[in-house]
């Protein structure tokens, strides 16, 4: 069963990775991705970003995404943590991690988790600009394309 969390507080990447391995000797590799707030968006400087979500749906969506990864890649552990609220440049936004017997499964599952999360979990980012004003981030067609790679089931190229 995956560990899934939505929280305002920061997370400790090392602790999350260590928790996947602790007490186990069947894991050969752990893939991990951590997303962080960039200070510049399309040439404009940010002072902060606000992450809004749909609480009743978010945990379910993340569990579904993690369960799909666990099944497809026979994962031995899976963690998805997403922060919400106001975040400053350089801060952590999201962590996904996948433990498997072999590295290819761990790394593919990691890519899948973040691609699907970006297109299937109900989070919305608002950017607050240094020059004043703010704007909701528009969805990127590249993210849809990245997620669509995983549509056909099974492993990928």
């Amino acid at each position, binding site marked *: 069963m995956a560990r899934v969390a939505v929280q305002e507080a920061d997370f400790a990447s090392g602790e999350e990775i260590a928790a996947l391995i602790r007490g186990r000797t069947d894991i050969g590799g752990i893939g991990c991705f951590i997303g962080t707030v960039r200070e510049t968006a399309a040439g404009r400087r940010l002072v902060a970003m606000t992450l809004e*979500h*749909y609480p009743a*749906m978010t945990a379910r969506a993340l569990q579904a995404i993690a369960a799909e990864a666990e099944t497809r890649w026979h994962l031995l552990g899976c963690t998805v943590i997403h922060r919400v609220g106001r975040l400053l440049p350089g801060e952590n936004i999201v962590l996904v991690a996948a433990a498997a017997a072999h590295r290819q499964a761990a790394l593919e599952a990691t890519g899948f988790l973040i691609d699907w999360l970006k297109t299937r*979990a109900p989070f919305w980012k608002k950017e607050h600009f240094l020059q004043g004003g703010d704007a909701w981030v528009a969805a*990127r067609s590249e993210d849809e394309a990245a997620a669509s790679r995983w549509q056909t089931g099974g492993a990928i190229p």
Partner: protein
Amino acid sequence: MAEGRTGTLTVLYFAWLRERTGLAEEQVSPPASVTTVGGLIDWLAARDAGHAAAFAHQAAVRCAVNQDFADAATPVRPGDEVAFFPPVTGG
């Protein structure tokens, strides 16, 4: 009326749909002719300028019914929780 009460839906708005409607959540009782998400959108958009603005570009609006992604053809029934929001941008 019993029918009026059972006809109540919870509607949620997120991100710029929340800002345009000025509402995070509302309870609505559309007429019995509203049976799908698409019908609900048309009915909501006719309510006031804020709702009209929120649904002006339906191609940019996504929806969930009872926390599952849905589309215009998805049925809505009394008691459902229907959420409207832009394409997601987390991660």
